[in-house]
């Protein structure tokens, strides 16, 4: 019996659910095959033409490829059912292919693998493939897609449903992670085909900061595509980033977060099987807040200059805190605070953990060491009345530094906090798990002219950092005398121009002024643990992806209003 004759004998005329028994009169299986977006060899939707075959692998457990003149090739594969697609109802190639009962052939066995083959250019009247005849092949090995397993079911099965849906718009399903390329009749009779092979090498880099390049060598996926997947180290859920064609050897991922430990893998998928590569790990770049500095008038009581900061993560972090007064004379400030003091309070503590009046008295070695490992500048006079602390807390903690002037002269002071851990990390920014500065804030008096509240900070690294900057007045709880209507403006020092001018980056008066950003501001506030402001409040917020650099932002009152203000910087990513 010739192959073509045998196939015709088993052809199911689907519309009327008729069938032809070829073997046991008592056994049958009823199949449905739902397929989406079958295509021809040119990627065009297969509408009203072509043949679709359901194939059993037979006892040898593997599928033979079609050969010239034979749908099932040289092995023991056999056609379970066949459909003439010119008679099937479809919507632009999206088929729900019905079926009929299929007599259970004695050559079949429970568990034999099933696959579908489609030949765009064959018809009922011609089921003999020519050399290089275009065809598509698919078998589901992962038992996904919502249907039954792609194996011959038990004799007598009422309904066995097979599903094949690929990515892309499809009225039959809402989504799929099967590459769209698999819908095409991408194989040719007589040509080499088979399961994908895994790459011999995978690698990642972030040579272009903010974009991770994933590269592979030595993979193959005949008639299929590669799916690129990513997950966080230690996690179990792979995210599909995209699909690339068989000839590609790299993929760029611009969707990386900052400081994340990622794992990437390549999954080769074609109609025969899917094969995953080994994993390539990388920690994405992250910038960090290297310092915060606030200049203001050192008053007393509620109007003292207060600086708070949060460290988050595991391990130790080296912190240098300074309160400068007399040192400011070297930069031309004459009304400096005469004798600043600094006291550091852990969150909720009534007494400071550490405090200092004159920096050179107690921690000279440590302070000089930390200065050398941070963006801090050296003190010019070991006997000056400026204050400083060097300490190394561990774990997530919140600190408040209160700076007064023991001279009570209401002079100008500069309070700074530095992350001095940089060199001990070999210059690599901390990842999400490692201890780092994530929030800094200062509270002080917002005056006018030279006495506006100014905060400065450094974003250190190679990639942007998402920052939430807030200037609060009305929303400061528990205090009277707050500035009623603050405004904030962010500047970045441009070191590429002569004189290093400060370029205005962003400004904001009332935090809801930019309606298109309100939702993101609220979401980011919740992410970083900042209280969401009341709608209608006159406080100020800037949400920005900040490039690495030196920043300052100025908080002042609208119409020269004055009062107590709070400026905050949150590192969101």
């Amino acid at each position: 019996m010739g192959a073509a004759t045998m196939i015709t004998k088993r052809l199911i005329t689907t519309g009327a659910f008729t069938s032809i028994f070829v073997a046991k009169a008592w056994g049958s299986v009823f199949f449905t095959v739902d397929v989406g977006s079958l295509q021809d060899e040119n990627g065009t939707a297969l509408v009203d033409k072509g043949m679709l075959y359901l194939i059993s692998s037979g006892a040898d457990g593997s599928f033979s490829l079609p050969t010239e003149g034979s749908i099932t090739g040289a092995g023991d594969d056999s056609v379970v059912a066949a459909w003439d697609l010119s008679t099937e109802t479809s919507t632009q190639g999206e088929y729900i292919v019905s079926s009929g009962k299929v007599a259970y052939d004695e050559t079949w066995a429970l568990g034999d693998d099933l696959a579908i083959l489609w030949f765009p250019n064959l018809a009922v009247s011609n089921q003999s493939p020519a050399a290089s005849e275009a065809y598509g092949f698919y078998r589901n090995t992962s038992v996904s897609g919502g249907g039954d397993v792609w194996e011959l079911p038990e004799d007598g099965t009422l309904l066995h449903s097979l599903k094949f849906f690929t990515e892309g718009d499809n009225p039959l399903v809402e989504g799929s992670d099967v590459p769209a390329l698999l819908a095409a009749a991408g194989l040719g009779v007589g040509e080499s085909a088979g399961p994908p092979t895994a790459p011999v090498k995978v690698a990642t880099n972030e040579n272009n900061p903010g974009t991770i390049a994933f590269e592979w060598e030595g993979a193959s996926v005949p008639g299929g595509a590669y799916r690129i997947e990513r997950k966080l180290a230690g996690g179990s859920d792979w995210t599909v980033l995209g699909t690339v064609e068989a000839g590609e050897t790299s993929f760029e991922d611009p969707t990386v977060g900052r400081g994340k430990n990622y794992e990437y893998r390549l999954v080769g998928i074609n109609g025969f099987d899917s094969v995953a590569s080994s994993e390539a790990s990388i920690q994405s770049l992250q910038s960090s807040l290297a310092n915060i500095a606030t200049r203001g008038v050192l008053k007393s009581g509620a109007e003292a200059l207060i600086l708070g900061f949060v460290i988050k993560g595991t391990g130790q972090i080296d912190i240098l805190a300074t309160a400068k007064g007399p040192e400011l004379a070297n930069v031309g400030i004459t009304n400096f605070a005469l004798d600043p003091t600094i006291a550091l309070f852990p969150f909720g503590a009534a007494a400071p953990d550490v405090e200092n009046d004159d920096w050179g008295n107690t921690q000279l070695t440590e302070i000089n060491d930390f200065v050398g490992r941070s963006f801090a500048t050296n003190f010019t006079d070991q006997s000056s009345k400026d204050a400083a602390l060097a300490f190394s807390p561990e774990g997530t903690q919140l600190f408040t530094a209160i700076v007064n002037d023991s001279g009570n002269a209401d002079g100008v002071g500069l309070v700074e906090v530095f992350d001095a851990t940089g060199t001990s990390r070999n210059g690599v920014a901390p990842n999400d798990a490692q201890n780092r500065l994530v929030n800094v804030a200062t509270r002080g008096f917002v005056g006018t002219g030279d006495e506006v509240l100014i905060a400065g900070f450094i974003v250190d690294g190679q990639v942007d950092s998402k920052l939430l900057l807030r200037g609060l007045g009305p929303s400061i709880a528990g205090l009277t005398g707050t500035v009623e209507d603050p405004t904030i403006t962010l500047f970045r020092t441009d070191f590429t121009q002569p004189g290093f001018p400060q370029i205005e980056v962003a400004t904001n008066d009332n935090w809801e002024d930019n309606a298109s950003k309100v939702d993101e501001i609220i979401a980011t506030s919740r992410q970083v643990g900042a209280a969401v402001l009341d709608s209608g409040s006159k406080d100020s917020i800037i949400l920005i992806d900040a490039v690495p650099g030196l920043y300052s932002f100025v908080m002042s009152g609208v119409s020269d209003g004055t009062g107590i203000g709070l400026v905050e910087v949150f590192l969101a990513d």
Partner: protein
Amino acid sequence: MNYTWKGKKFLAIIASVAAAGTVVKAQEVYSQIVGAISINLPAESDVIVSFPFKQSAEFRGFLDSASGAGNLVLNVSAESLTNGAFDAQSGLSTHYLVIESGTQQGVHIDISSNTGSQLTLVGGDPTGLANGDQIAVYPHWTLGSAFPFGVAKEDEAEPGLRKIEVIVPQATSSAGNMIPEGIFYFSGGAWRKVGAGINAVADNSVLYHGRAFVIRNNGKVSKDALFFGEVVDAPIAIPLSESGKYPLNNFVGLNRPLAISLDELGLAGGGVFEETTDPTNPRDKLLTYSLTGAGKNKKPVGTYYYYNGAWREESAGASADKGGDLIQPGMGLAVQKIQVGSNPKDSNWVNEWELPQ
């Protein structure tokens, strides 16, 4: 709603019943008895069911005369039919006739067409029909009338990944197992048929009287299917076929709203169901399918034969009387008629039953 003077009482029948009726003062008038049954559909499972209720009759009258061989033609006693009201649509009957009195009481036959005074049926036998026999015409249940919002109100967002499918099998099967005649799903506010295109409406697809069908829940959570309609408390005649070539399974269901024991079926002892004389070689069989068990492509949970004056179940042995085993309302059944030597014929299994008072 039809009303009757026969004193039928308004009755709430089964759990999760929704009942409605009308009582007119001064005269005691009762509606037909209505009821509802909720059948659980376990996750990733088939449930083989039959519709336990009927719809309201659209005509009641009396037979004047019957004639014709092969396809009966009935003349009704008064010209009270609406011409063409019961004509088949696209070759499929939309209504069936029930003979409610006389020697063929309980027999139901599909209608192919009608005039103002005449009904033409699909098949039927005039033997025993007599002037004055009471007749009624009922609409077939369709998917649209039985489940107007889908089974368990499941409207498929993804027609390719159907959570609920209704599989209507062929009436009989020589292969021993059910063979789907149509697979349906509810999507976009209408019933659709697999293979007919995702936009073709199949609301009028018929769930034939007395036939079993399958509801397949492909989803990960169980659902409940609600059946609602009028109680059939008159005799029911269920046609059974046999074959000269092989044993033939007849997939049927009883339109009864309460559980009935095997001894109350009226299946054995009337000559319709061939009794077993040698329990090692059972003759006709009654197959039952679990309403509650999980799993797809279900096999029968009970295989009964009638031997030595009692129902026996294959796994329980020939000495155990299983006549008290219950057929639950809505349960699908198969009556397996053994291969006959020659002259296979159709016969009617008549079930008589009265609603407990």
